[in-house]
């Protein structure tokens, strides 16, 4: 067969779809289809997708050192060849016209281009000077769940180890912190016990405030494919607004903001009342606990909270649930007692395997830790956990929120192994990092919101921001932008495009993006994914890892950062791996990572662990046990009595609407990359405010007319979207945050979960005016 280039590419497109269909629908056949072989000038190389924590494996097609095509990697068990619209277009984000290619320094109020070495000299000198003048805790690093694992590792080593300050935070505090504290308080160890294979095993899916159709589209496709294949699969969307996920679900159930706490407790009440509890499992593998209540919201500077866990008996727990009969919970949540009983019956049915999915809805929540605990309660009471298809599954938003932030520990209290408060963990880090004993400070400093408050107050004077855009994403943004702009603050920003954050910078470093450097990400299912440098970066671009190494060496830490630019990623990985050298967390060797489309940890004796805490699959479990929740000393998971408490700010007479914020499928986070991809930008060129049709009619606005959204902190005017892809209930509006021209975070509130310190972007009070 003779083919021109275009028909060849078409044939490759068919080939990719057929291969994907084969892995998702075993035995499927396409008669009208012939395979065409050959490469036609395109070389395909593997990488994890740049956008989102699903961690799809992609194959990037390269011609003449330029990335021109993307296909789903059929060898990657995450996506089995599928890809979403963001994933496919991701390579175009490398080639935006205004890509940052040169370093810049602010001179006499103006940014001027300089050689990158000069910029690195200035950063090192300013860091030294600030520490000397204001102390070690006056300098900070703010990174990201889009950092590669080596980026986060060297940042932690430099700041926590060499400089001795725990001022290291990452934007994953804004998206995953409640998931971490949920895991730690329920299981004593972080990250999901299950894996994406749960999707093919489960009979019931309940999405808790999680619009998977847009935020985790490939996993959602796998769910729909499973429903198609098995027929008796049920999907329930439990949410505060109607979305594409609700439309595809078998049942859409809406609850009032923050009342998921009451719904979860009512489901537990029903499970116990109907005798659906797995008594044997509960007796052998769980204990009951309660903590403090009325725990506050953190809206004031220097807010402090420490929980005080106490044991309780099963009888006391049962008594606590009396406040959450389905009827009482209906009055709090607006979910009918019938629907609560229905969900309880699905969780309680011993013949059904149930997977719960959640992401930002439960994590960006002033009681985020609590609601994570409560969903675990449901799975623990029914014994539906750590077995294929029975999975409480916390999804991540960013490609390496797990890998870089949770595993490397780039949060103020964390180290790659353990926490700074523990001597054993500090000693281990000091040994691996070749530092004198006592180098690491035993006291955590600032979590993200407090770190930006410290910048505003002047307690922090120097901040280096990499791979994130806080001048769009911080809640109550006006305060934090004004703080960053104060005269004696020095801000360094490493990024790939100009953003509102580079606008406040004193030094801008041009960063390598994604496949212009070697690195690793870690996705939602404990999978570490390596990628090579596939295409060269433009101009003076440099990986974030190497930028940090350059500064560290200028500060005199050559011994700690000895690597050569040729092989530093492999060397860093092997050093980092020493922190996790135990069967509960072993990571795969560098060579294994390089060869495969992702490897799950714990990686023990050459094998990945699919389901943790279940001795059938997890070699770290105690011999002779069936389940072993080994994060807790006694091997038992904690069931928590956590009450319903309201949001920090609820609608009142003056500010009578809820404001909820989030994302759309086409755009990644603050849009700095996806808005430079023409097809994605054209699909959703600007942000908008979703209104309920009745509210819109009362306000007298039609689709596309301008609405002013006003809170106690700021206001914004934008176009109305009525009956669009999402429909909020009466009394709520929803705004996507991707658009820097409409900074919705000037309106949001910086209240957070007192345990996780993760802000709640889903709930504050606003009023509306027709503009």
């Amino acid at each position, binding site marked *: 067969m003779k083919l021109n280039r275009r028909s060849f590419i078409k044939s*490759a497109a068919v080939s990719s*779809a*057929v291969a994907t269909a084969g892995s998702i629908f075993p035995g499927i056949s396409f008669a009208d289809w012939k395979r065409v072989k050959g490469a036609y000038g395109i070389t395909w190389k593997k990488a994890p997708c740049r956008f989102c924590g699903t961690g799809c494996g992609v194959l990037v097609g390269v011609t003449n050192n330029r990335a021109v*095509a993307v296909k789903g990697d059929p060898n990657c068990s995450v996506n089995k060849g599928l*890809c979403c619209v963001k994933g496919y277009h991701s390579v175009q984000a490398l080639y935006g016209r205004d890509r940052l290619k040169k370093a810049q320094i602010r001179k006499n109020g103006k940014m001027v281009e300089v050689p990158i070495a000069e910029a690195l000299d200035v950063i090192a000198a300013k860091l030294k000077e600030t520490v000397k003048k204001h102390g070690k805790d006056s300098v900070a690093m703010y990174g990201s769940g889009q950092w590669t694992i080596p980026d986060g590792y060297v940042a932690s080593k430099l700041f926590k180890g060499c400089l001795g300050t725990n001022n290291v935070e990452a934007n994953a505090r804004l998206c995953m912190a409640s998931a971490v504290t949920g895991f730690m308080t329920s299981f004593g160890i972080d990250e999901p016990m299950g894996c994406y294979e749960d999707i093919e095993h489960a009979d019931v899916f309940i999405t808790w405030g999680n619009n998977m159709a847009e935020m985790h*589209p490939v996993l959602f496709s796998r769910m729909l494919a499973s429903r198609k294949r098995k027929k008796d699969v049920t999907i329930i969307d439990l949410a505060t607004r109607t979305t594409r996920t609700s439309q595809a679900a078998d049942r859409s159930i809406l609850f009032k903001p923050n009342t998921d706490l009451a719904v979860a407790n009512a489901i537990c009440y029903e499970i116990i009342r109907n005798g659906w509890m797995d008594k044997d499992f509960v007796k052998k593998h769980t204990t009951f606990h309660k903590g403090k209540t009325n725990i506050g919201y953190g809206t004031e500077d220097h807010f402090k909270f420490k929980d005080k866990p106490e044991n309780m008996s099963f009888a006391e727990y049962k008594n606590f649930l009396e406040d959450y009969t389905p009827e009482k919970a209906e009055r709090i949540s607006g979910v009918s007692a019938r629907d609560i009983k229905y969900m309880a019956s699905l969780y309680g049915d011993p013949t059904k395997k149930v997977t719960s999915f959640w992401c930002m809805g439960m994590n960006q929540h002033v009681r985020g830790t609590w609601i994570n605990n409560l969903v675990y309660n449901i799975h623990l009471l029914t014994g539906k956990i750590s077995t294929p298809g029975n999975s409480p599954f916390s999804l991540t938003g960013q490609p390496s929120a797990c890998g870089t932030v949770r595993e490397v520990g780039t949060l103020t209290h964390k180290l790659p192994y353990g926490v700074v408060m523990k001597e054993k963990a500090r000693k281990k880090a000091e040994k691996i990092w070749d530092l004198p004993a006592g180098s690491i400070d035993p006291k955590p400093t600032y979590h993200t919101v407090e770190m930006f408050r410290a910048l505003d107050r002047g307690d922090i004077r120097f901040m280096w921001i990499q791979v994130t855009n806080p001048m769009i994403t911080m809640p109550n943004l006006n305060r934090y932008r004004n703080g960053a702009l104060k005269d004696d603050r020095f801000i360094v920003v490493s990024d790939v495009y100009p953003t509102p954050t580079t606008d406040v910078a004193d030094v801008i470093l041009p960063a390598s993006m994604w496949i212009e450097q070697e690195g690793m990400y870690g996705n939602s299912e404990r999978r570490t994914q390596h990628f090579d440098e596939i295409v060269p970066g433009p101009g003076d671009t440099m990986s974030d890892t190497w930028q940090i190494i350059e500064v560290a060496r200028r500060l005199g830490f050559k011994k700690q950062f000895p690597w050569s630019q040729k092989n530093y990623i492999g060397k860093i990985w092997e050093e980092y791996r020493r922190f996790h050298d135990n069967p509960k967390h072993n990571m795969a060797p560098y060579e294994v990572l390089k060869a495969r489309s992702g490897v799950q940890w714990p990686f023990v004796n050459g094998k990945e662990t699919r389901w943790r805490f279940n001795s059938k699959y997890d070699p770290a479990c105690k011999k002779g046990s069936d389940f072993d929740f080994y994060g807790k000393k006694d091997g038992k998971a904690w069931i928590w009595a956590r009450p319903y408490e309201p949001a920090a700010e609820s609608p009142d007479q003056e500010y009578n609407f809820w404001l909820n914020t989030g994302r759309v499928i086409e755009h990644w986070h603050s849009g700095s990359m996806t808005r430079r991809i023409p097809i994605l930008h054209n699909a959703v060129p600007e942000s908008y405010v979703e209104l309920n049709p009745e509210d819109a009619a009362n306000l007298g606005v039609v689709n596309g007319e301008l609405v002013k959204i006003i809170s106690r902190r700021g206001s914004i005017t934008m176009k109305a979207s009525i009956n669009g892809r999402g429909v909020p209930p009466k009394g709520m509006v929803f705004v996507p945050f991707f658009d820097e021209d409409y900074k919705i975070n000037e309106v949001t509130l910086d209240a957070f979960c007192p345990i996780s310190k993760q802000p709640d972007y889903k709930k504050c009070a606003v009023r509306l005016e027709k503009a």
Partner: protein
Amino acid sequence: MPILSFLALPQDGGMEQLCNDLSAMEYCEIIPAENQEVIVLVTDTPDVEAEKNLQKSLKNLPSLQSLSMTFGHNAEQ
């Protein structure tokens, strides 16, 4: 302009309808599976406008339950 491929799943019992709908659309080629309700869809559009319109029409197709992308190439890159 882009050449994309997708797996298209019809609404329950809507395989034939979806095959008809997709084959009638400009810039679309389909390969229906023989033994499952799954269709391979390949789109090949000449310009941005056509691509935008096509994506819009696909989104509004009542016989379509879900569309998952598997491959993309942009000839203009």
